[in-house]
């Protein structure tokens, strides 16, 4: 029973983080068919933003607030300078964002060094929950990512821009004909997507090693989440993350980790075979 509680909490941690990263990836892909291969690097930059702000500002919290703003701005610049010119050629965006990811990664390596960094940890210690001791920070992580997820959900469902974005995803031409500034929608979506990756990086920064390569593994996982969950869908991002991240985490605690990973990948293949557009796309 205790083991199950821990496994579920572990699964929830990874699920929430992956769903945040995947959500950013999924909305950008859903809107303009752009797969942002530099999304993992935005995640990394988010963590590095905390490292830098730790040196000048009150520990951690300033960084956590600053990271999504900064990385959102980076996303905006990237959209204006690079992606905007390539919307007509989705395959070229793959190449451009792959190039960008290498430039960002190696740029960070050249300026900040290849070595590890750390950020301050806002809380240490364990909390007694469901009959087990669980690190306070991880519980906080689950709560705050859930809050962020709900906030984005609220934005998309109940605000003017949210409606415009959903209209543009559903049918761009008609949305444009109805007077929606679709170019501005593109920018907003890119900013939100990037900011989410940056926020995920910042929130993960106290518990993972920070190095220029840190985005790569998370990107690969969140990409799988998007494919399994379906693009442009909230429930898809959440369900995909639950299956890929949560499933793997929970399975790893009962069977051999390598088998757990293989099993989850197999499951992903089966899902894609029967639901080629993901779990939640009609």
């Amino acid at each position: 029973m205790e083991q199950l509680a821990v496994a579920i909490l572990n699964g929830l941690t990874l699920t929430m983080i992956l769903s945040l990263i995947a959500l950013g990836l999924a909305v950008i892909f859903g809107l303009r068919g752009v797969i942002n291969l530099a999304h993992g690097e935005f995640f990394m930059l988010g963590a590095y933003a905390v490292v830098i702000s730790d040196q000048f500002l009150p520990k951690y919290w300033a960084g956590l607030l600053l990271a999504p703003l900064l990385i959102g701005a980076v996303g905006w610049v990237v959209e204006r300078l690079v992606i905007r010119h390539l919307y007509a050629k989705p395959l070229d965006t793959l190449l451009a964002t792959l190039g960008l990811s290498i430039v960002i990664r190696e740029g960070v390596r050249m300026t900040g060094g290849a070595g590890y960094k750390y950020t301050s940890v806002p809380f240490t210690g364990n909390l007694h929950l469901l009959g087990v001791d669980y690190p306070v920070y991880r519980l906080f992580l689950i709560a705050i990512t859930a809050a962020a997820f709900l906030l984005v959900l609220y934005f998309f469902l109940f605000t003017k821009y949210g409606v415009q974005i959903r209209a543009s995803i559903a049918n761009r031409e008609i949305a444009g004909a109805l007077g929606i500034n679709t170019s501005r929608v593109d920018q907003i979506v890119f900013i939100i997507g990037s900011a989410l990756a940056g926020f995920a990086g910042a929130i993960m920064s106290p518990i993972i090693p920070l190095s220029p390569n840190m985005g790569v593994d998370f990107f690969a996982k969140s990409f799988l989440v998007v494919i399994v969950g379906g693009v442009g869908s909230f429930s898809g991002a959440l369900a995909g993350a639950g299956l890929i991240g949560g499933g793997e985490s929970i399975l790893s605690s009962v069977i051999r980790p390598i088998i757990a990973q293989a099993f989850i990948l197999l499951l992903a293949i089966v899902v894609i075979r029967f639901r080629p557009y993901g779990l939640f796309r009609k």
Partner: protein
Amino acid sequence: MARRTRLLLPGIILLALVFLVPQVTFASGTGESQSIKLGFVNMRTGFGSIHGLHAYRAVKMAVDEINASGGLLGKEVILVEEDSHTEVDLALQKLNKLIKQDKAAATVVFVFSNILEAQLDIAKKEKHLLLGGGLNEGTFVNHYLFGAYAQPNQWIYPIMNWAAKDKGKKAYLIGSDYAWGRGSLDAAKKHLPDIGATLAGEDYYPLGTTDWAPAVQKIKDSGADWILPMVAGNDYVMFLKAFFDFGLKGKITVANTIFNEEDSPAFPPDIRDGLMTGATYFTSVPTAENKAFLEKLRAQFGKDVFMTNFGEAYYDMVMMWAKAVKTAGTTQTEPVIKALEAQGPFLGPQGKLTVDPKTHAYYMNSYLGKVNADGSISVVESLGESAPQPVVSTDARIVP
């Protein structure tokens, strides 16, 4: 169309430059007979990039030192460094390039077991001498490989002995699921009965694992007194972060073997303070040779730089190779191999290193270190020199 033609001319010029420049440099170079090239397939980018810089510094220092004392056989030694991006394919391409294009006399190769294994195939085919260093799981024994690689008895057993003596008898082994992780822990398992310890659990995780919470939970539930992690690269730090995150510091001891000054910046001071680790070299090793070595290193690369056990081993290996070339009077592979096999002890920063001609492994030194809050590592015990005991049977070895 106009745009295409406009691009055509610059394009042709660019292509011409790309193809011509290397030829020109070769033509105007100093010529083959004036220099000896030493290849180096390093990891400057990718998964293993964290180790690349210190390795480069060490090899560069050795080459500069050789040249400062008159070079080899009256010739200057030129270091040709290539970056493998820590990928097997690229590492093989670069090794081939160094052998065929640069005609390197020997090549320094990096430690990752999967890469080394593949590079050995090329070395055998091309009859090319590989120089390595650091540590390995004891399965690399080859005619064309000389490595100041600590064998499991030199880099794993010392910390195990300490843990079993001071921390308890129940050990948990956790590793990366590939040759090095499994091989190292296989060697460790054989040593458990010798120190009266028992296995509380054993687990392997794929490279690139991002979620270590389940692993930590299993360790917590196992009742282990100490753990021996053989988790590679970035994953290792990721694992340790999760381990400390779950509040296990002070409850279950970590017997580190690959924790060095490269890893300590990943942890806040209160977490890294007091961690124990074993290795063949730390920056703080108290030998006269190390003092001189660090002085030179810091004069060349900055006053705060440290050195890793990998880097130190490369330095030793390149110096020993240079000595062997002088003895052999040639850079040809076979005579140099014979000279290396017959070479006596060499005094390196870690202490005395002596080759075992049967396995090409080295008698090396072991140290126990304690990590300080500032990230540096102090030597708490010098265990001295020990004979290498590779895991493979020595009969199966060294078939040219």
